[in-house]
């Protein structure tokens, strides 16, 4: 098993099963590493599983996370350790020994069938933490209905038997005999090559911050509010206020509860980075939930909608949905005597007075409900964990990382991702997770594939000459099915159906021992089709299909009838009709089974080379991330030298030398033997994922390169302003111009008396509705640098919202302390720049003073927007989409932030949207990890459920070409008929149902295979 004694191990431990941990585990396991997933609660899913919808797409959180949970739960190379915590670690990178304590579950996971009878009968009710204590669960429970693993567990702190030695109701009633009070806590010693920490966060405790919270039930935290919106929440998604269960008419959100607050105990000085967006989302979703118009108001300091397409979301909320945004300081949240309402007293920001009145005015407004946008923080348990692991923390208790190695903790071989690294949203957590996977994969590259398991199956039987011989297995599911449906009668009925040569019932068909019996039966009775009448194919089909494979049967010769979820569970009070329905369902499945055909899946070799388009920080990191894992990478860079935009940036806001970093990267690229085609661009692309052929125009002739994947890292550019006299005077400059000036003529700069910076130049306006995210940071960075050069210099920043998200807030605070003046202006009341001979000046409305101020300045620095590079040609070649502003659109804004929807093409850096260097590095490593996970398979399986064209019938009408959501079909110019590449087809069947000549067939879902079920159901009806 192990490689040489001193070589690294091919396994990784991921600590924390939230979305970041899940992503890291899946990336690693799919790239050839064995993963131990350590989760302290009984199920994975983390906070994301508690969210209702996610911004800015309003996707249902559960809908998008659920497939990931299932994939992880079923993964052959992920060992899931729930109720587990890391106690200690020894060793070094490549070879750690981790001590994991696993608490007793008191339920045998092998036996539990998640029927829920135990919980139904358990007499002890406790607050349900998944619903933030707003509903109750039993002492034996599953965390939530979609939980993975979907196995009950006993909460020992609340179990009557464990507490008092009496009860055992669950044990008595469990039909599977799964309850096991003899279980004890266990300690595992696990050897792994690397560790990824993704323990997540907790929300700040609102009690010390808002007195009324905890006293008035209508004051809730944002996470509680998520549960109130959720269909799986305490009110089944009916938005009612907790005090009287009436639909609210008026809800307020209070921002920055526990964030951007360096004074109060329990609060944090950093910005939590996500609350503005989730508050907007909650306000919009809440409006959708209510029958009557709902008034929503968000009380905030700065609206920080800095992410990709976030500003559009904010605009939509404000302009189309009528969410009110009130820039203010709330100083009191009070009860309204005689009612459950809440009174908010606030001082409005002077600038928001419509009459421009300078004085701060105090207002009060009454609301039905108040949502506290609570910030994020590292939990005490995680702080303890970090101590045990020897991982250093920042002053804010996040894992300490370097901006150039954003996922490396202070201890080599231990990586971090998600909220423990710093405040961030889901997509950035997912990016970091893949980046952390990449970092671990680099450490352990020699051991890739050494510890993973693969299933060996006997060769498939040839059934072409055989008549269907169907076996029907009817499951009692303990009493889940049997208590309602007459299983014996159903079994006997099944035996009478055409082609059925065998039928049998089992107590638990899915149990390990039954599967063995099923195998024997298949072989003994020479079954060549199997129908299981039991529960949902969503959870169990793969299990039974594995059994089929073990018997040398094609897995597509399997059919399931769901007589539990769709029958016994919903017709509990009508056993007779339920039995008849079970017969109907089985008759349908048997009929279909007879028509099923084996589908072949064949391997297709993957070219192991990656093409990276763009040689800036993103491209170089992506190429290095792949190269260091042993995959060949080729960089195509349009400029004569590598480095991209970063060559114009001297240092990060933390003070790190960017130019030196770029030089180091260039050297590393050279040392790694990565081929660099500079002064070149991608001129042509053919083939498909796994086997692309690119034509590179190198400036002196074309080069053809074959490769398996593409990484797009084409970067962005700084907007050349048309505003504020830019270009008319060399005293008006962008932040990048200023950077250059400081670098080259700091003497000149040091003589300046006053510098005025203007933010949002070319951003957040009609032409470019997005926020460019990094300009506030750029202004603060340079303001601090100027203050360092000459502390006497006046530095004034004219801004609309200071978007110093996350721990960047520290620098904003520092800048204010050092005397940088921040003055807000309104979008409709732009500052005016005037030239007066050699002098320049800026006139603006000081919203606090309430009057117009004119100031002369030595320099005016514009926070110019970050715009997409000219990339239309590339987008067309790769057939990848771009948003209205020209940034590439990832496959999914939340969970696939570095993938394109076309497989084999990945995205990183500012080509995706404006972002910081540290974020770019993380995203590039993530792109490398995603590409590596594809490349590491050496070959990909194609076929199975894919569409196939019958050329003789095809009229080449283009209907399939126009309708495929993935753009897969094309008309073969030689044959003159449609061709659907089985490697690219996703198997949705849209083309099949549209084809006017019915020339396309979808494997496993042919018309006859679908219609036969209808025929069987309605047999004898007409």
């Amino acid at each position: 098993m192990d490689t040489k004694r001193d070589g690294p191990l091919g396994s990784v431990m991921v600590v924390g099963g939230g979305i970041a941990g899940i992503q890291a585990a899946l990336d690693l396991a799919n790239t050839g590493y064995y993963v131990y997933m350590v989760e302290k609660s009984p199920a994975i899913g983390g906070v994301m599983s508690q969210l209702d919808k996610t911004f800015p797409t309003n996707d249902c959180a559960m809908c998008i996370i659920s497939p990931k949970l299932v994939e992880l739960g079923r993964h052959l190379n992920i060992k899931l350790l729930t109720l587990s915590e890391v106690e200690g670690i020894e060793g070094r990178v490549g070879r750690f020994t981790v001590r994991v304590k696993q608490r007793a579950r008191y339920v045998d996971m092998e036996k539990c069938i998640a029927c829920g009878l135990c919980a139904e009968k358990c007499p002890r009710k406790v607050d349900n933490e998944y619903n933030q204590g707003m509903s109750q669960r039993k002492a034996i429970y599953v965390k939530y209905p979609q939980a993975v693993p979907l196995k009950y567990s006993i909460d020992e702190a609340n179990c009557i038997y464990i507490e008092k030695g009496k009860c055992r109701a669950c044990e008595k009633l469990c039909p599977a005999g799964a309850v096991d009070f003899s279980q004890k806590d266990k300690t595992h010693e696990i050897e792994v090559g690397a560790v990824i920490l993704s323990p997540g966060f907790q929300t700040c405790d609102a009690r010390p911050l808002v007195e009324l919270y905890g006293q008035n039930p209508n004051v809730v935290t944002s996470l509680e509010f998520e549960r109130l919106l959720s269909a799986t929440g305490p009110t089944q998604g009916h938005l009612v206020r907790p005090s009287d269960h009436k639909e609210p008419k008026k809800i307020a959100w209070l921002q920055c509860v526990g964030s951007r607050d360096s004074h109060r105990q329990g609060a944090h000085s950093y910005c939590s980075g996500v609350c503005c967006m989730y508050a907007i989302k909650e306000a919009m979703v809440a409006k959708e939930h209510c029958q009557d118009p709902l008034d929503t108001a968000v009380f905030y300091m700065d609206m920080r909608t800095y992410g990709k397409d976030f500003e559009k979301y904010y605009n939509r909320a404000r302009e189309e949905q009528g969410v009110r945004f009130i820039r203010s300081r709330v100083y009191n949240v009070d009860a309204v005597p005689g009612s459950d309402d809440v009174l908010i007293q606030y001082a409005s920001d002077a600038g928001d007075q419509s009459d421009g009145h300078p004085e701060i005015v105090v207002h009060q407004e009454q609301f039905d409900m108040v949502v506290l946008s609570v910030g994020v923080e590292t939990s005490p348990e995680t702080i303890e964990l970090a101590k045990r692991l020897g991982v250093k923390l920042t002053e804010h208790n996040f894992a300490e990382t370097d901006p150039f190695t954003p996922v490396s903790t202070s201890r080599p071989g231990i990586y971090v991702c998600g909220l423990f690294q710093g405040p961030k949203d889901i997509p950035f957590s997912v990016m970091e997770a893949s980046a952390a996977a990449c970092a671990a994969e680099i450490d352990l590259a020699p051991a890739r594939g050494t510890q993973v398991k693969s299933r060996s199956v006997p060769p498939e039987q040839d059934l072409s000459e055989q008549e269907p011989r169907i076996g029907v297995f009817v499951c009692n599911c303990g009493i889940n099915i049997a208590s309602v449906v007459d299983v014996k009668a159903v079994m006997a009925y099944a035996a009478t159906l055409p082609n059925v040569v065998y039928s049998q019932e089992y107590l638990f068909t899915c149990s390990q021992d039954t599967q063995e019996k099923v195998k024997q039966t298949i072989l003994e009775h020479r079954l060549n089709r199997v129908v299981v009448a039991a529960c949902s194919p969503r959870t169990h089909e793969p299990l039974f299909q594995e059994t089929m494979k073990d018997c040398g049967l094609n897995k597509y010769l399997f059919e399931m009838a769901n007589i539990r979820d769709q029958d016994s569970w919903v017709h509990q009070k009508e056993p007779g009709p339920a039995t008849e329905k079970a017969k109907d369902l089985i008759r349908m499945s048997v009929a279909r089974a007879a028509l099923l055909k084996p589908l072949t899946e064949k391997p297709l070799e993957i070219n192991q080379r990656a093409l990276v388009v763009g040689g800036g920080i993103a491209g170089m990191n992506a190429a290095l991330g792949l190269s260091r894992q042993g995959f060949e990478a080729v960089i195509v860079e349009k400029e004569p030298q590598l480095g991209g935009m970063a060559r114009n940036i001297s240092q990060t806001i933390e003070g790190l030398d960017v130019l030196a970093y770029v030089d180091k990267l260039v050297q590393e690229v050279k040392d790694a033997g990565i081929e660099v085609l500079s002064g070149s661009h991608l001129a042509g692309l053919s083939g498909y994922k796994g086997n692309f052929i690119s034509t590179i125009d190198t400036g002196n002739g074309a080069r053809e390169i074959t490769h398996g994947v593409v990484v797009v890292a084409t970067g962005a550019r700084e907007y050349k302003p048309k505003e504020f006299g830019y270009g008319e005077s060399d005293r008006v400059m962008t932040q990048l111009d200023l950077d250059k000036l400081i670098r080259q003529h700091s003497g000149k700069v040091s003589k300046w008396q006053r510098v005025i910076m203007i933010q949002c130049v070319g951003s957040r306006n009609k032409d470019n509705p997005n926020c460019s995210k990094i300009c506030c940071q750029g202004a603060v960075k340079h303001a601090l640098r100027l203050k360092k050069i000459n502390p006497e210099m006046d530095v004034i920043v004219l801004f609309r919202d200071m978007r110093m998200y996350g721990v960047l807030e520290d620098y904003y605070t520092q800048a204010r302390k050092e005397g940088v003046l921040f003055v807000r202006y309104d979008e409709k009341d732009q500052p005016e720049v005037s030239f007066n001979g050699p002098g320049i000046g800026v006139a603006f409305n000081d919203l606090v003073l309430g009057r117009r101020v004119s100031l002369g300045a030595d320099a005016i620095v514009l926070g110019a927007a970050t715009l997409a590079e000219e990339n239309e040609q590339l987008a067309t070649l790769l057939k990848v989409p771009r948003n209205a502003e020209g940034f590439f659109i990832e496959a999914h804004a939340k969970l696939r932030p570095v993938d394109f929807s076309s497989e084999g093409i990945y995205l990183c850096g500012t080509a995706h949207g404006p972002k910081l260097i540290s974020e770019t590095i993380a995203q590039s490593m993530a792109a490398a990890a995603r590409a590596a996970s594809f490349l590491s398979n050496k070959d990909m399986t194609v076929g199975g459920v894919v569409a196939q064209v019958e050329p003789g019938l095809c009229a080449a009408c283009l209907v399939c070409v126009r309708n495929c959501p993935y753009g897969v079909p094309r008309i073969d110019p030689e044959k003159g008929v449609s061709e659907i590449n089985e490697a690219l087809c996703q198997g949705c069947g849209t083309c099949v149902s549209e084809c006017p000549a019915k020339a396309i067939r979808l494997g496993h879902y042919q018309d006859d295979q679908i219609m036969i079920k209808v025929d069987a159901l309605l047999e004898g009806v007409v």
Partner: protein
Amino acid sequence: MPCTGRVAIIHLMKALEKGADGVFVAGCLEGDCHYQAGNLRAKKRVAYVQEVLKSIGMDPERVAMYNLSAGQGPRFAEICREMTERVRQLGPNPIRKNGERKEKAA
């Protein structure tokens, strides 16, 4: 079905032709299609079948499209009840009624 994008007009027609009283298609929420837009195609096909039903004097309400997510169990139950109630109001598929009559006559 892998996706409601695979639901063809003929599938819905056949179900009614074979005597079903009603047929509904349950797809992902709009904008949340697992296969990007299959549910939108299905919606159009359902609308088409409704037109055909009108043209042959059958009640278009016998077919319907619903959108819900995998996490909305209660909603699914609600839809089933809604559809059952609707079909109950409409009465049996006329094809079936005639079929029964034919049997008696035979």
